[in-house]
């Protein structure tokens, strides 16, 4: 169990780091933080309270708060999808904008059983899953298998490297856009 105060402090610290503000309406803020706490207690990670989780880490990692879509959403609309994080203008005006879902439909669908049968069949109800690295589609192991193919990506501007499905929308280090990222092609050679 994580304390609500810890969830609040973490969100405040993150907003400060990135130059954002937390939503200006106290009752909404309280609701967002409680939702995050519930999800962290339930899944083991602070999943976005406004989105449906699959419960499989690899499928959910783009919507772990702060989600992948926060930075481009705040840049475009002044707030994230939930409207937990807002920019200064929205914070001062207290007018929360409508923010459409940026998460691709194919990723949203992973939260529903038929879209992720291999992972879902083995998942105990309410169970907590660890990230899975294996990709074998034929494996019927007890642990759920994610079908996500992760790759190494590097930011051509600052050299930041990530190992994940897609490059981030915005580089967390130098703020370069997604287009600046390139895949690191690696090969393994056997000799002798």
């Amino acid at each position, binding site marked *: 169990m994580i304390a609500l105060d810890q969830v609040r402090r973490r969100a405040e610290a993150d907003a400060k780091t990135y130059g954002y503000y937390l939503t200006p309406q106290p009752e909404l803020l309280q609701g967002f933080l409680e939702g995050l706490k519930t999800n962290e207690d339930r899944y083991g990670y602070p999943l976005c309270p406004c989105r449906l989780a699959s419960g499989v880490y690899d499928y959910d990692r783009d919507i772990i708060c702060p989600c992948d879509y926060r930075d481009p959403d705040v840049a475009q609309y002044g707030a994230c999808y939930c409207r937990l994080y807002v920019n200064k203008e929205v914070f001062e005006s207290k007018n929360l904008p409508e923010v459409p879902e940026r998460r691709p439909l194919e990723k949203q669908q992973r939260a529903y*059983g038929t879209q992720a049968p291999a992972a879902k069949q083995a998942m105990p109800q309410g169970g907590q899953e660890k990230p899975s690295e294996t990709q074998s589609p034929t494996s019927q192991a007890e642990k759920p298998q994610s079908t996500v193919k992760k790759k190494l990506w590097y930011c051509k501007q600052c050299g930041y490297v990530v190992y994940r499905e897609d490059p981030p929308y915005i580089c967390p280090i130098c703020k370069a856009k997604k287009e600046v990222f390139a895949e690191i092609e690696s090969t393994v050679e056997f000799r002798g």
Partner: protein
Amino acid sequence: MNILKVSGKINKHKVFVYALSTCVWCKLTKQFLKDNDIQYEFVDVDLADEKDKDKIHETIQNMGGMLSYPTIIVDDKVVINGFRKDKLTEVLEI
């Protein structure tokens, strides 16, 4: 599926809310309906079992809705995505 019914004096429309138990906007939608004495049914999708999630997915997509929450379906034909007071007021003739 664990569908809960909330009674209200105004029941001229069939109102169904697909919600998440953790979602603030879903709670506000439910509260708005209650405050306006509108009868409605809802399901918290995050608490549903996997089979029901599948059914919900199919229903929402067949209605042309987005997989976002809350999704409110009025009279089995009008889909409202998100907590939109203006749209709810118009469709439910509040």
